[in-house]
């Protein structure tokens, strides 16, 4: 049975004046997934998520949420099963954390007991009576997540939820997000410009570059793109290239290294012996792996941040 997609966008486009921020984006978020929406700053992640939530109007294209095409009339009804945290947390600083959640709980129409539950999940029970103006940034971010979790929606959309958090806070947030599908059956869309973050949280990934979705699949599939190679460095490359040609290997040259396809240990040992026997000085033999970073950079361009 094919997996149901909770979000599907078709040719979703957003244009401000002459600038195309999101260009014909076809996003598919399967149910139960943690979908990492990855891209450099300014790639169009937030704009896409805002369009999904109806906070920005698409110039073109369509959005389907929970199998229903979203329009102005059914938007709020469909979003009732969605929680969101866009860019920075929304809060009333003069109210306490609990009072802030009560506003969302009342407007969402979810049970009052949810307030205590979500406060416990984000570990803000002790600070619930404190005014949010006195919260740290990390606490505000957790409060934002708690607000998004109210009513335990089917879909959670988090835009850069670890922004501004310290390393411990980032780790905590990641762990929390990771547990959401299994513990509460929540499908999560989480955006980030950090590959490592998505790598640690997501199981599906969509990579956006200059408004275009350049990759979308499982994270596992992205990992399989990682290519292993053997790199050798000798004092006289042309001789080494001849030897490799005799062995039927077509090496590629990168700086002072020759890169060959992945071979087993015995083959490497034998090759090294032959190179040395030809009076070549063998400086280095390394195993190289095309990392996720390399893949990300090749997909998004060298100028992108990681």
């Amino acid at each position, binding site marked *: 049975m094919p997996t149901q997609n909770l979000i599907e966008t078709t040719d979703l486009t957003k244009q401000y004046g002459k600038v195309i921020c999101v260009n014909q984006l076809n996003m598919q978020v399967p149910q139960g997934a943690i979908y990492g929406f990855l891209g450099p700053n300014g790639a169009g992640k937030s704009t896409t998520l805002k369009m999904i939530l109806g*906070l920005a109007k698409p110039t073109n294209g369509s959005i389907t949420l929970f199998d229903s095409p979203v329009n102005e009339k059914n*938007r709020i009804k469909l979003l009732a099963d969605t929680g969101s945290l866009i860019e920075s*947390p929304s809060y*009333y*600083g003069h109210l306490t954390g609990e009072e802030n959640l009560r506003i969302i709980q009342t*407007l969402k129409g979810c049970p009052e007991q949810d307030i205590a539950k979500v406060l416990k999940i984000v570990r803000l029970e002790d600070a619930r009576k404190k005014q949010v103006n006195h919260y740290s940034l990390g606490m505000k971010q957790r409060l934002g997540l708690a607000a998004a979790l109210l009513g335990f929606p089917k879909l959670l959309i988090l835009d850069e939820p670890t922004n501004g958090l310290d390393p411990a806070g980032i780790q905590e947030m990641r762990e929390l997000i990771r547990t959401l599908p299994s513990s509460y059956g929540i499908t999560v869309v989480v955006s980030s410009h950090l590959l490592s973050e998505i790598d640690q949280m997501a199981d599906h990934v969509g990579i956006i570059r200059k408004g275009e979705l350049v990759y979308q699949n499982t994270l596992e599939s992205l990992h399989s793109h990682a290519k292993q190679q053997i790199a050798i460095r000798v004092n006289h490359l042309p001789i080494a290239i001849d030897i490799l040609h005799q062995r039927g290997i077509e090496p590629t040259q990168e700086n002072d290294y020759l890169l060959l396809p992945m071979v087993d240990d015995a083959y490497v040992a034998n090759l090294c012996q032959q190179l040395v026997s030809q009076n070549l000085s063998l400086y280095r033999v390394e195993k190289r792996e095309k990392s996720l970073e390399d893949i990300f950079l090749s997909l998004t361009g060298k100028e992108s941040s990681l």
Partner: protein
Amino acid sequence: MKTLKMEFYKIKRRKIGLTMCALMAVQFLWLIWAFRNPSESERLQGWLGTLYSMPLINSIMMPTIMAVLASRLADVEHKGNTYKQLETLRTASSLFHAKVFCGLIFIVLMFVAQFTFLILFGHYLRYEGQPDIGYYLRYLLLSLICTFALYLLQLALSMLFFNQMVPLVVGLCGSMLGLILMYLYNWNFRFLFPWGGYISTMFVGADWDQNTRIMTYYYMETTENGFLGHGFIVLWMILFYVVGRILFTRREV
């Protein structure tokens, strides 16, 4: 209803009610100071004199009070970046209406307080006879419409501008304009400014006798120009409501 209820919940500890009370208190103190020792002639025409003075005082104070009210109600959303969350729970239109009704409730309460104060104060000063309730209610209705129109203007500005200085400056300028319009007796087009509504809908006139130093008040008949003034305050109210709603609902968060 839930959205409106939450509107009042949101402003908990913001002391908006207290601020409005303080501003109304300033207005009441002004009246107490101005009418503290009424002469016999002033006592005779006291009820009428109040209906002459109040639009002038409102025209100076209400633009600023409305700017403060709208700004206090709107900036809680700006400060916490809350629209992007609220608009996933409610339509922008319903959020706009909640603010409109919340403000309207404050305005009605303020004018009920003002109305009550005027009646009690008149009795305290032993004004001759009884107030003409029909005219007093007319004053109340016209003042409410003018004030509500100004509130809608200020609310639109406060909700659209992150920096609340912009709407506050507009409110202060409105107050100044109200003061200037007071002195333009012979200019018949004061209703062309939304801040001129209080004066252009006045129905009590006054004659100042320099020799006796006595002011004589009288009810004015509504002229063609007066009808225009009445029509314009309703027009301003509708215009600010429609434009404010369109701008608020069409903007992107």
